[in-house]
């Protein structure tokens, strides 16, 4: 086993260590903090490249290597952790460290004026460490721990400007909503452990993702006739749905845009949200366990596919009617994550992962471009106040266009190849054509809303100076961002354009790499996919054209002007811009229900349980009263004593609730007395 496999932990440990050191540094040491974070990330990138080369040069069985060790013992059981290097890990490592490195550098410029610069880099470095930990983990427990740290840093970074109430609320929302999903993941993990007795993914035949465990899991069925593997897989999917913003746990993702833009780019576009997809790719053997001759798919994969399809459509629809430049991208991210889920569910790991990788690059590019725009517009985020930025920010515009074209799936850009492959696999899915049609509509919408955004932001003349409320310091007009921000943009633009060529149907290098084969160039494969490629290109161009038709022909000049859809279909537009009122629905149902349940419990406690106690004492008192009435007026007064004792009983019982701690303690003592006495005397008899 090579050096890199043994020391893979360094990839995650370096940013962690940097974060730890930064945390104890002084607020003023900005250069050192940024240097440490960027330096650690660069080192991790180098290590990731080494790991990648290692996987690239190994063949067959050797492409999956792991290094396990015993962590601690409880009772007679040893908890074992480990790290794993396989093509999946290697690809993700390179992607995360590369994108992360660029975003770190970009942040130096973006956060330059923030007084909490040091804190920001501390959190970023911690996030990077945890995210890389998720990638290298060979144990679901280790993965879960890093997963939670990722969630925590996400919370910290969304709420980075915590003095803004909306940011604090968004952070809390993100934390709680993803926690709901993580509950599923935790249950799935516990169940998996209970069934297989290990949480190691690969352990020389004894891991939970290896043949032995999987056959057992696939053989047994549980409620609703689900196989165990599917049930556990669906629980794990809950976790990834929470992290990846899938319907119905998507509500946090748009709000998460309250955080600084590099955070949105790194965490909520390129890496963390992709961690959900990665997790599914990691446990794909579990999800697909039990695919037998008759069945080509499992329940778990169907769930993944349909949830992904719904999310893809939902996100694309809502993105059409947003005004905030980052929110549009956030809903777009949601939609694209849905695509990845479709790809994973219908086509397997390589299809979903390919889109994940290309998406990571072009979406990070788009977010950083958006950040550059916001930076250039002095903090303005509403696209209605922008416009005409093509001239003011030419570099940003050029890079942004690459990202936009890639996202839309314009032929030959990276997004085209990956999205096309998803559509293709959805098309040949033998259960239903539904996901395919949904995906196609989504693609159309994607092209449409991106065109809308581009035209709003870059075309025409500026609307910034006239109405901007944020243009402080007497700035007027937009300006290009500094080099430290534009250079990462340009670097990211390159893979956004060309990365797709690594996974074309002609030369499916990426897919073969993930499966451990070597790729061959075969033009024959193009023939099968070609008609569909034509169709999807057409769809994209229709979307672009529609956008042009609605927004580009007659440019918007006035800030207060209604959106073109709004003026045509106000009801539809409001439904979309309100994101189908899911938030309000939750507020009206889940949150309301919780509040009602709490007050019902309080009421129950106060009136029913308390009432019973009170009723008992009242009844005793009543008995006593009745008795004494009968006693004094009907029966001989000689019974006074008996009556008094009953009355005493009533007051005695009411005294039980006197609120005196010691009296409660006394009951415990008496109960102990009775219990021990019963135990011994009773046992003798």
């Amino acid at each position: 086993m090579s050096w890199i496999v043994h020391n893979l932990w360094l990839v995650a440990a370096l940013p962690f260590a940097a974060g730890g050191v930064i945390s104890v540094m002084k607020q003023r040491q900005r250069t050192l903090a940024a240097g440490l974070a960027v330096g650690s990330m660069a080192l991790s990138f180098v290590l990731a490249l080494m790991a990648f080369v290692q996987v690239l040069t190994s063949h067959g069985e050797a492409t999956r290597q792991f290094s396990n060790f015993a962590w601690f013992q409880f009772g007679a059981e040893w908890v074992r952790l480990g790290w794993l290097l396989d093509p999946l890990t290697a690809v993700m490592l390179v992607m995360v460290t590369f994108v992360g490195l660029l975003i770190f550098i970009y942040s130096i410029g973006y956060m330059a004026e923030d007084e909490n610069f040091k804190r920001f880099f501390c959190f970023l470095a911690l996030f990077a460490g945890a995210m890389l930990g998720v990638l290298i983990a060979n144990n679901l427990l280790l993965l879960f721990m890093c997963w939670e740290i990722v969630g925590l840093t996400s919370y910290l970074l969304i709420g980075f400007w915590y003095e803004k109430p909306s940011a604090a609320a968004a952070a809390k929302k993100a934390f709680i909503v993803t926690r709901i999903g993580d509950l599923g993941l935790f249950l799935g993990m516990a169940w998996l452990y209970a069934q297989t007795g290990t949480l190691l993914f690969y352990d020389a035949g004894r891991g939970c993702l290896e043949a032995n465990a999987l056959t057992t899991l696939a053989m047994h069925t549980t409620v609703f006739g689900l196989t165990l593997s599917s049930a556990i897989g669906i629980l794990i999917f809950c976790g990834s749905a929470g992290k990846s913003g899938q319907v119905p746990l998507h509500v946090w993702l748009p709000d998460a845009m309250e955080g600084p833009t590099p955070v949105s780019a790194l965490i909520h576009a390129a890496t963390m949200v992709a961690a959900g997809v990665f997790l599914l790719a990691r446990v794909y053997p579990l999800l697909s366990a039990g695919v037998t001759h008759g069945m080509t798919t499992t329940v778990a994969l169907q769930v993944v596919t349909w949830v992904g399809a719904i999310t893809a459509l939902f996100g694309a629809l809502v993105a059409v009617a947003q005004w905030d430049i980052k929110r549009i991208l956030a809903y777009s991210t949601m939609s694209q994550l849905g695509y990845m889920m479709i790809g994973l569910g219908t086509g397997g790991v390589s299809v979903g992962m390919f889109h994940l990788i290309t998406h990571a690059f072009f979406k990070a590019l788009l977010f950083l471009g958006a950040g550059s725009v916001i930076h250039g517009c002095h903090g303005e985020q509403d696209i209605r106040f922008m416009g005409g930025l093509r001239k003011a920010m030419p570099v940003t515009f050029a890079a942004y266009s690459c990202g936009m074209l890639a996202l839309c799936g314009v032929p030959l850009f990276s997004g085209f190849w990956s999205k096309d492959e998803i559509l293709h696999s959805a098309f040949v899915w033998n259960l239903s054509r539904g996901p395919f049609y949904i995906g196609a509509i989504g693609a159309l919408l994607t092209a449409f809303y991106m065109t809308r955004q581009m035209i709003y932001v870059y075309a025409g003349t500026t609307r910034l100076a006239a109405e901007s409320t944020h243009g402080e310091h007497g700035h007027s007009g937009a300006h290009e961002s500094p080099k430290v921000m534009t250079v990462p943009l340009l670097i990211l633009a390159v893979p956004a354009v060309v990365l797709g060529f690594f996974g074309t149907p002609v030369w499916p290098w990426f897919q073969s790499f993930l499966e451990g084969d070597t790729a061959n160039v075969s033009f024959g494969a193009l023939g099968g996919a070609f008609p569909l490629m034509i169709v999807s290109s057409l769809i994209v161009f229709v979307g672009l054209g529609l956008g042009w038709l609605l927004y580009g022909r007659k440019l918007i000049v006035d800030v207060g002007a209604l959106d073109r859809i709004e003026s045509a279909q106000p009801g539809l537009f409001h439904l979309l811009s309100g994101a189908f009122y899911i938030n309000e629905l939750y507020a009206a149902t889940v949150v309301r229900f919780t509040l009602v349940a709490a007050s019902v419990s309080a009421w129950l406690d106060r009136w029913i349980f308390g009432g019973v106690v009170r009723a008992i004492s009242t009844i005793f008192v009543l008995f006593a009263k009745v008795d004494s009435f009968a006693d004094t007026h009907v029966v001989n007064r000689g019974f006074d004593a008996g009556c008094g004792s009953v009355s005493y009983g009533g007051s005695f019982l009411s005294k039980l609730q006197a609120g005196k701690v010691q009296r409660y303690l006394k009951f415990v003592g008496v109960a102990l007395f009775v219990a021990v006495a019963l135990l011994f005397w009773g046992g003798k008899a």
Partner: protein
Amino acid sequence: MTPLNLFLLLSALLFSIGLAGALTRRNAILVLIGIELMLNAANINLIAFWRFGPNPEALTGVMFAIFSISVAAAEAAVGLAIILAVYRHNKTTNLNQIDTLKG
């Protein structure tokens, strides 16, 4: 060698002394002390059964006693903090005058 029964008797006696104190004292701090005493009595039992048990090499009783001591320390800290908070609110630590637990 002292027989096991004597240790158990001692433990029972200390437990009862602690219980009596906790039941009759009026000062919340002393009630807490009584409870600490009951915990200690239980620890004597744990150690005694470890020593006289069939498998003393496993150190189970000793471990249990150590954990119990740690928990008792935590309990004392939190308990005394609660007493301080209650005192600040009620201006007394006399349990006869504190009946906010009343239903």
